[in-house]
């Protein structure tokens, strides 16, 4: 019997993976072939989805992108034994896109059946938790600190220090909360991890719970990810059944359980305090800090709030040791970053690599330039609150500090590429409009500032008092940056200011607008 892998990843499904599975099953039955179809996560070569892999004696051979209409021809070409076909990409592990990466957080994604505890363990799963239980809570936190792991959600705060703060806070209860409200455009790494290797996130949460002496974990997942919800809930059920969750985690006497909660379409709930309010059943309004969630978080109890990628990386750090992870990267950006390459690109997908790779290498080389075939004009890094960078800054390395020095951010590691048809004044307006739609309304700079921002950019685009209005817009950005309560209002000016700085010509073409 031949094992065939067809991803269950939402991106693969969006390109027809479910219909493809049905077609392969039907074709196999009509030809009297017995096949076993495994729904894996995505390898991250998203332009090849659905990527069908066939297990052969010499390794897994890939075909993609496969459409339903290709199925009969693939059988004719003998794909069940890795036969040649125009869609064949050869052995998946040998593909240049895969070979150039250093997969740590995503090592198992696309490789294993995400819901199989047995396969998870065969590929190193569980070793991190076993080591943590052996080390004890304090030494586990020490290990995470020494690895240099920083929050992958955007702020880049050292994970180990956050854990220690929570562990040291006196309390009768402590919580582990995972922020899976990945709302930034151009990002999908959280989703891919939760669909492709959900058990690593579960294991990371157990380790965290053990380290901080907490017994309850919540994952707050955005509602735009229905597939991730199904897969992750399946993983929780499998983990509970296997004794990874419950009153006696893996026979250690430690008690821990996880509950999946679904958000309701509010972008601001990706901000940690707003997320906690939402989990408590309230409006997702940002809290003033201090107190930090580490001191007074969910239901007023000390709470670790970590991003999916940070938490999902913890088991690997414990398994391989802090030093192994700390040896990767540059400066204070240690380890690897799962980059998400998106927008107008030829080869979009997930590419995990050591920190330090230049932006231009990613866009021109790895992403292969634009899908439209036109010249690249701008790249937005870090989601809707991230700066637009011009081609002249393509030597900038992926490094938290290097980006900060250029008034930009890495955020969650998403890159959205635009070709030369983009109107940057429109994109700046969109940034303000998005902030106005998603503002929680608590602080004035964000709530009112974003609306005034839209109006001011509209005036500029209509050619009204352009110079004066640009000054006004800059002043408004300054107020929002330094006067807002959280990163939504505080960072919304980044795309606007960067558009003004790097693409000033787009704000001075009233004649074009009038002609429309």
């Amino acid at each position, binding site marked *: 019997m031949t094992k065939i892998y067809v991803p269950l990843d939402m991106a693969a499904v969006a390109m027809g993976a479910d219909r493809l599975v049905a077609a392969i099953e039907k074709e196999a039955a009509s030809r009297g072939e017995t096949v076993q179809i495994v729904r894996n996560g995505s390898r991250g070569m998203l332009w090849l989805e659905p990527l069908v892999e066939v297990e052969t004696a010499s390794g897994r051979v890939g075909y993609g992108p496969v459409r339903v209409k290709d199925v009969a021809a693939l059988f004719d070409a003998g794909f069940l034994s890795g036969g040649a076909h125009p869609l064949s990409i050869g052995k998946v592990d040998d593909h240049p896109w895969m070979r150039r990466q250093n997969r740590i957080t995503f090592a198992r994604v696309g490789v294993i059946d995400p819901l199989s505890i047995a396969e998870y363990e065969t590929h190193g799963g569980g070793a991190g938790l076993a080591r943590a239980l052996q080390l004890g809570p304090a030494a586990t936190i020490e290990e995470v600190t020494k690895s240099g792991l920083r929050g992958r959600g955007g702020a880049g705060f050292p994970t180990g220090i956050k854990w220690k703060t929570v562990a040291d806070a006196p309390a009768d209860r402590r919580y582990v909360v995972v922020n899976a409200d990945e709302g930034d455009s151009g*990002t999908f790494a959280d989703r891919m991890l939760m669909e492709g290797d959900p058990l690593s996130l579960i294991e990371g949460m157990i380790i965290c719970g053990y380290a901080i002496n907490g017994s309850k974990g919540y994952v707050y997942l955005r509602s735009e990810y229905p*597939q991730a919800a199904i897969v992750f809930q399946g993983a929780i059920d499998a983990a509970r059944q296997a004794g990874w969750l419950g009153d006696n985690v893996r026979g250690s006497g430690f008690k821990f359980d996880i509950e999946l909660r679904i*958000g*309701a379409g509010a972008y601001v709930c990706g901000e940690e305090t707003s997320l906690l309010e939402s989990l408590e059943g309230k409006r997702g309004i940002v809290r003033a800090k201090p107190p930090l969630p580490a001191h007074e978080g969910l239901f007023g109890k000390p709470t670790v709030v970590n991003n999916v990628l940070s938490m999902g990386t913890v088991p690997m750090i414990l398994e391989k040791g802090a030093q192994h992870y700390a040896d990767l990267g540059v400066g204070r950006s240690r380890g690897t970053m799962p980059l998400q390459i998106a927008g107008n690109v030829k080869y979009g997908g997930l590419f995990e690599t050591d920190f330090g790779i230049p932006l231009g290498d990613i866009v021109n080389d790895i992403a292969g330039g634009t899908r439209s075939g036109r010249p690249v004009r701008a790249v937005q890094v870090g989601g809707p609150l991230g700066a637009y960078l011009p081609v002249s800054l393509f030597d900038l390395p992926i490094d938290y500090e290097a980006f900060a020095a250029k008034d930009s951010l890495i955020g969650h590691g998403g890159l959205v*590429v*635009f070709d030369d048809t983009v109107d940057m004044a429109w994109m700046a307006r969109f940034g303000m409009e*998005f902030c106005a*739609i998603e503002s929680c309304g608590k602080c004035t700079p964000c709530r009112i500032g974003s609306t005034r921002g839209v109006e001011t950019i509209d005036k500029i685009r209509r050619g009204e008092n352009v110079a004066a209005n640009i000054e006004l817009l800059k002043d408004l950005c300054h107020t929002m940056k330094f006067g807002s309560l959280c990163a939504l209002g505080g960072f919304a000016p980044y795309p606007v200011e960067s558009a003004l700085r790097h693409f000033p010509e787009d704000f001075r073409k009233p004649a074009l607008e009038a002609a429309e």
Partner: protein
Amino acid sequence: MAGAAPYNDERAREIIKSHLGLEGPALPILHAFMEEFGHVPDAAVKEMAEALNVSRAEMHGVVTFYHDFHREPHGRHTLKICRAESCQSMGVEKLANDFLAKLKLKWGETTPDGALTVEAAYCLGLCAHSPSALIDDEPVGCIDMETLDGIVAEAKS
């Protein structure tokens, strides 16, 4: 996918009761209401406020804060078109405007026959296949006018 059962207080109370064991049960209850009734009417807000011991104003605030919870029923199907940056880079703004103009709808409105509500979404995490959309809970990548026309035809059938 949103449900279409007619609202009744007794069923609402059952749903609330089944969630009372949770910490912070408001959002799970509201999702359950959406799944059952397709919307959250005033009567349901009243039941929730009583059961959770908060004021109706507070509960109203929660329901109206989140984009996913509606006070009125939507169409039988919901199409969410992503208009975030990645999809903009692949021209979704023009595509969506042309599509809405063709259906004579604005964002958030429903076709007169009640078949389809068209909403804007801000990132579906399908950014390597921009522009993308969700029809009910089914993702669709690399959409164009032909895909959207097909979705409308299927929703109306």
